[in-house]
């Protein structure tokens, strides 16, 4: 299984939150910044930059090897793509029971714009490289 993941060079993150915006825009319906911020409901980003005592950390789904959300999902909406290792939420199948939110230890699963289903990082399914990585001005995030 060739699993590409997003990695973080902790010392390079300056907390500019470019990844947050890029992510929100990528997951908006227009996929364009100026339209996205005027959408209703507003698009939901799936990465958040937080600060620890001395660092900034963009927190996003890690697509865990032992993904608690996958184990906890009652509806079968969460699955693991065997070839890429991605943990994916099928929004058609998700019934919004929020069990995945309850078990995600780093809080990277969000309630979607409509309040009906759970969403999270999909490693930008339509893109070769996730937009958070592309948008990072310091290359703190990288994909390999």
């Amino acid at each position, binding site marked *: 299984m060739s699993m590409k993941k997003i990695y973080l060079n902790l010392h390079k993150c300056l907390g500019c939150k470019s990844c947050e915006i890029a992510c929100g825009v990528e997951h908006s319906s227009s996929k364009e*910044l100026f339209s996205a911020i005027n959408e209703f409901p507003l698009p939901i980003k799936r990465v958040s930059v937080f600060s620890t005592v001395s660092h900034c950390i963009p927190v996003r789904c890690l697509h865990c090897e032992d993904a608690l959300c996958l184990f906890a999902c009652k509806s079968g909406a969460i699955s693991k793509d065997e070839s890429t290792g991605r943990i994916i939420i099928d929004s058609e199948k998700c019934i919004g029971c929020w069990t995945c939110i309850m078990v995600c230890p780093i809080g990277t699963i969000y309630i979607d714009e409509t309040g009906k289903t759970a969403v999270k990082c999909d490693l930008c399914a339509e893109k070769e490289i996730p937009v958070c990585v592309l948008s990072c001005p310091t290359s703190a995030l990288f994909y390999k």
Partner: protein
Amino acid sequence: MAHNNNFKNLSIDPTAVKMLKKAEKEEISIVWDRYENMKPQCRFGELGICCSICNMGPCRIKPLKDSAQKGICGADSDVIASRNLARRVAAGAAAHSDHGRDIAHTLLLAASGKASDYTTFDADKLISIAEELGIKCESLSINDIAANVAEIILGQFGSQSGEIIFAKRAPKKQIERWRSQGIMPRGIDREIVELLHRTHVGVDSDYKNIIYSGFKAAIADGWGGSMIATELSDILFGSPKPIRASANLGVLEEKMVNIIVHGHEPTLSAMVVKASKDEELNRLAKEKGAKGINVAGMCCTANEILMRQGLPVAGNFLQQELAVITGAVEVMVVDVQCIMPALSEIAKCYHTKLITTSDKAKFKDTEHISFDEENAIKTAKRIVKTAVENFQNRRKDLVNIPNEKMELVAGFTSENTFHFLGGRFRATYRPLNDAIISGRIRGVAGVVGCNNPKICHDYGHLTLVKELIRKDVLVIQTGCSAIASAKAGLLKPEAAFKYAGKGLREICEAVGIPPILHMGSCVDNSRILIACCEMVKEGGIGDDISQLPVAAAAPEAMSEKAVAISFYAVASGIFTVYSPQPNVLGSKNLLNLLCNELNKIFGASFAFEENPVKTAELIIDHIDSKRNALKLNPVMYEYEENIP
């Protein structure tokens, strides 16, 4: 290099593409590389919703679903975006106005005999301005008149009350709008200072009030500082007259000592031109193996010496590094504004000496020859001599001057331009107004502003102006925008045959002018305001600038000055399309104010559009709506939809 060799996406100027290739070969990183390296650019900044005005910050408003909707002080996206924008206006107005102040100061020194190198006043213009200022000229010498003018004008900067003098040139309705809105400037410096005060943390927290204050400072620029710079430069250096010249990097001469004057103020450049004609220096040049001394301009300095002396133009803003990269520039002498800090590093890759001259603008590790008006020609000669002596250091293997250069006609002003339309002996705007009324000309558009690597170099300008003249809009240009047209051959009278619509072509043919008129540097946008006043005065196409079938655009805007210009254009009733958007899209309310609500106040508003074809459509629609409102005849000739 980051841009994958696809230079044609970066510039439509063939000289730029050639120099980009040369730069790549020589591993020199230039503006487009730095732009690539800067990507991704901060989207908060792009939206205008980050604030670092105070020390509690930096703050950012989160434009997506999130909790941080207010800065630490409580400023929301409206306040933050409007403060940021207003501060740009302040800086832009400050730059223009300080330029104007320097010219006024030079005039005063010259008049009192302290700057004896500036002697040839344009007496007609001097007297007409003096009379406008209420000076009784009969009993005074030219020098005394000049001194009086200079003093009154210098007083405009520090004036604390009343109304700035040149603003009263505006049509009545504009003045009424400004007065009723409380934005008639009292003094130039005062409005800029007050704007900076208002945008200090915890002062003005009403985005509309902040923006109106921005308009006040901008009016103090367009109808103050900039207009002063234009008018007094005309007095000091002579009013421009139509003049032939050439433009693009091809104006550099392989066998001559090349000096590029770059920046904005004509005070120095005019003296360098003078010094370059000095016999002794030319003899020295020949001794050093050169055929002579060639002075060419860059950016608005180029426009100043082009308009008045017909000197060649090397290029516009994005070509300043490329000029050095030709390897054939002995000295690049700079004063203020739009001079890339990168030049000092790039000059070191060649024999080129970068010389700074303004004490306001020094570069690290760069030779500084402080320029003062009292020793103008002496300083200029020293600079020219440095260039001549540097000729022998030129590295032949690194020299590659693109051969492209283009003929052009420049030197139009609000006073002389439309004299042409009326024939040489009828100095009136009547023929222009008549041409508009009859529908031969659809309207007039000012296309101005900078270059910006976010937009393919010159593409925005050229696409827009070609669209406009094709649809019978007479285009007037200044600054780097005019240089773009010059390089593309659009400032030749013959361009009318190739590019202009039928109606505009008829006018150009009859009068012998190009379809696009070059009116000078960026402070000379004030000439466009005066032209609008004259059109109103002439009558028949509206008694308020906002009723005229006119519009403006800055398709590749870059500097804070461009923001200030767009502000005074809109405040003066001119619909203005600005691109790229000046970081205002993060505030819906601000955007609505700028693009809609201002119509109620000024009769004009902004539009933000990056696509120059769409910009042309917006301008055509606007002009047509103004024509409809004035119940003018339909435009005489339909334009063809798809012109090559």
